């Protein structure tokens, strides 16, 4: 066994000394290739290398299987073990160099990684024995990969919270938190001396979302009632997906709709005749269009919830002589109310976090005004405007976007959690 292990290692060292001369030529060839092509070539080479490792491991195991009575694992699994050790070696080599800042140059790093990979494969080949549990070994690695992948979701949340909190703390070192939370003036100046009070933005956000809900809740709820209680299966089978198309349309489309159609329409037929302003981007424009967008969020979830109300409640009410509409209003809706509230909260969280519609429809002026036909701005609009273009992470005018992001994240997360808890409780009630 010792010989088996030493032999490939000496081979590697030999190859390395030969490689030095080859490296000179390769460096010249490397310079001629585009970075993309280099990466692709590197990937292809790694794949070829690993396939060779697999075939070597498998063939060796197959040869051994013919000589012994019984092997624990199929030859393929021994091949897979070789692939894992090879990949581990290459990965360790690349990472070690990336962390230490490439002390041996790009090419040195590649050679180092190849050497480690070869050693890994060589070691794996020595492990091939009848009683080696190659399948268990492979399955453990696969399981580790599966767990790692499901942790990506957790890592994403950690990343979001960490980046928001870290940069927000940074912001509050440069700008007083009391000003941010209690000032009613939003006026960033890139020369310094800005006032960055959040209230005008919160006001705009809530105003737009409120109009959106005023549009979406009655339409969504009535559609859900009709679909769940009155519509024939045929009408339901096409009307429900048709309404859900509204949820599948990208928000940029709604934004453009607000910009070129709804905005000018509201300005020419409502705002100007009523003397309420002459801006085509306004809270009303953004709110109306956003309302259309969230209709399916209200209707789909409400529909599910109304359907979950037990038939016995309806039968009881109808049996007492109530008309269907009385049953809906007096029995079904009160029973479904918690769930519907949950649906509305989810729609509200969706409206608060919406970006493109307000960027294109609501305007950019931070104002505390009651006039719905005036341009106002929201938290999301200001995140976009403070972070697009040349961003340098040193001025409070840029960093404020992270504080706004944290506010937005907390607000929507809170709404979602409350909504989910309500909906879950409601479901349990009837299960």
């Amino acid at each position, binding site marked *: 066994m010792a010989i088996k292990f030493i032999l490939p290692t000496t081979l590697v060292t030999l190859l390395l000394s030969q490689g030095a001369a080859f490296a000179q030529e390769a460096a010249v060839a490397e310079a001629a290739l585009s970075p993309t092509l280099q990466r692709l070539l590197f990937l292809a080479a790694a794949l070829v290398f690993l396939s060779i490792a697999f075939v070597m491991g498998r063939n060796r195991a197959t040869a051994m299987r013919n000589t012994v009575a019984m092997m624990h694992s199929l030859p393929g699994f021994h091949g897979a073990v070789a692939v894992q050790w090879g990949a581990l070696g290459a990965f360790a080599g690349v990472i070690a160099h990336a962390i230490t800042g490439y002390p041996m140059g790009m090419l040195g790093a590649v050679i180092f990684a190849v050497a480690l990979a070869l050693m890994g494969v060589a070691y794996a080949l020595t492990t091939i024995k009848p009683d080696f549990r190659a399948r268990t070994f492979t399955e453990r690695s696969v399981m580790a990969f599966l767990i790692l992948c499901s942790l990506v979701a957790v890592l994403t949340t950690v990343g979001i919270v960490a980046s928001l909190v870290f940069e927000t703390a940074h912001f509050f070192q440069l700008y007083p938190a009391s000003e941010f939370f209690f000032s009613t003036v939003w006026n960033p100046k890139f020369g310094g001396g800005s006032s960055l009070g959040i209230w005008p933005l919160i006001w705009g956000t809530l105003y737009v979302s409120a109009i959106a809900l005023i549009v979406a809740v009655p339409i969504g709820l009535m559609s859900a009632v009709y679909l769940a209680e009155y519509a024939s299966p045929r009408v339901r089978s096409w009307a429900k997906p048709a309404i859900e198309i509204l949820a599948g349309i990208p928000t940029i489309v709604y934004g453009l709709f607000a910009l070129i159609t709804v905005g000018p329409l509201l300005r020419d037929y409502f705002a100007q005749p009523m003397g309420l302003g002459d801006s085509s981007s306004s809270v009303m424009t953004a709110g109306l269009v956003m309302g259309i967008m969230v209709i399916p969020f209200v209707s789909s979830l409400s529909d599910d919830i109304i359907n979950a109300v037990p038939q016995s409640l309806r039968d009881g009410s109808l049996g007492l002589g109530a008309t269907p509409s009385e049953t809906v*209003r007096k029995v079904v809706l009160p029973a479904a109310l918690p769930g519907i509230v949950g649906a509305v909260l989810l729609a509200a969280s969706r409206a608060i976090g919406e*970006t493109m519609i307000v960027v294109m429809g609501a305007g950019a002026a931070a104002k505390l005004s009651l006039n719905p036909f005036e341009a106002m701005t929201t938290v999301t609009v200001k995140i976009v405007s403070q972070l697009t273009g040349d961003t340098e992470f040193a001025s409070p005018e840029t960093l404020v976007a992270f504080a706004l992001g944290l506010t937005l994240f907390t607000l929507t997360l809170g709404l979602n959690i409350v909504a989910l808890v309500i909906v879950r409780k409601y479901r349990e009630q009837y299960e």
Partner: protein
Amino acid sequence: MKASSLLTQDPRTKKRNSAEKRFRGLGLTAIVIALAMLVWLLISIVTAGSPAFRQAFLTFPVLVDQTIVDKAGTRDPALLSAVTTLGYGKLLANSLRAEIAAKGIDLGDLKPKEIAQMISEESAATLRDLVLADPSLIGTTIPFTALASGRIDGFYKGRVTMETAALDKNTSPAQLILADRLLDADILSVKFNTGFVTMPDASDKRPEAAGLGIAVVGSFMMMLVVLLLSLPIGVAASIYLEEFAPKNRWTDLIEVNIANLAAVPSIVYGILGLAIFINFAGLPQSAPIVGGMVLTLMTLPRIIIPTRAALKAVPPSIRDAALGVGASKLQTVFHHVLPLAMPGILTGMIIGLAQALGESAPLLLIGMVAFVRDFPGGLFDPATALPVQVYSWTTRGDPGFVERASGAIIVLLIFLVVMNATAIYLRRKFERRW
């Protein structure tokens, strides 16, 4: 009180019955309003955007005049490239005037400069590239199709009228009259505009030359990244959570996490991408790789949910049978459960990709709004994306860009319809009831 009978309804019953009808009517109205909004939205975008697919072109022979582009007559590449597009613009204008004179078309009182104004500045650049690539063209007459200027183009799409032209310093009614005469003489033609989908973006003053080429390529690259990252990660995570995860606090945490991530506003992912990928990891701005990774993080929870549903739909008897003949747990999943769940997983994947394709807010933050003129050669080169291109066009002054933006939306919607139709087709074809 009058006695009621089955034949004549008493006032209270009448009231209740009419309330019933009203309520029902209200429900129907709500559905009709929702669908009417959808139709209104689509019609308004399609009518605003369809002109972007047609374009006015000027076709005439161009004499590549040596006295303008190569005064020394040496064909020296350095001297040739010293001639700017202004010189080539002159070339086009001279040739157009010559053609007009040759066909005997009445010029009205148009000055040469005003005729030059009718040709897009972009075409001068195209001609320059053509000549620089092949200097033997100098001194010859070549057939050439130039873009008409944005205003002339707009005249044939109803965006520019005689009245607006009179107020516009970039065009004049006399130019429009000449354009009509050129149309009769077959010099000017309005044709299908393939350049809209293949050309790169153009500067603020040249809406007629702006195309979606880079945005389409950029979007495609990002979708590739999203597919390559989110398919393995999403499927692996779903398999773990659905098939192997023990019921404990940790897996509960992961599940709550995924549910919440699906509802986090997309712009927050943009902030994440900016802080982690660009600021911390030092990846380049505007690069499809960064956009792809941000969209992957955003789409993952939305892919995991349908994938888990697809895995759950595979009946336990399949697993029991596999385990019964001696397969390991992983073999059971990878050899039997996964292949059976694949159609459902693919459907969810395509729908997730379609959502990612239409997403723009996070991409704004990682610099994909930048003006990009060169096609990206790889995932690390600057590019834009379809929805972001729409946004950046709407921020420009020239009204021609509104038409372009709506046209781009039509292209985007076509992609989305194709993807969703594929998903529905797959679902219909492979859906199994156990």
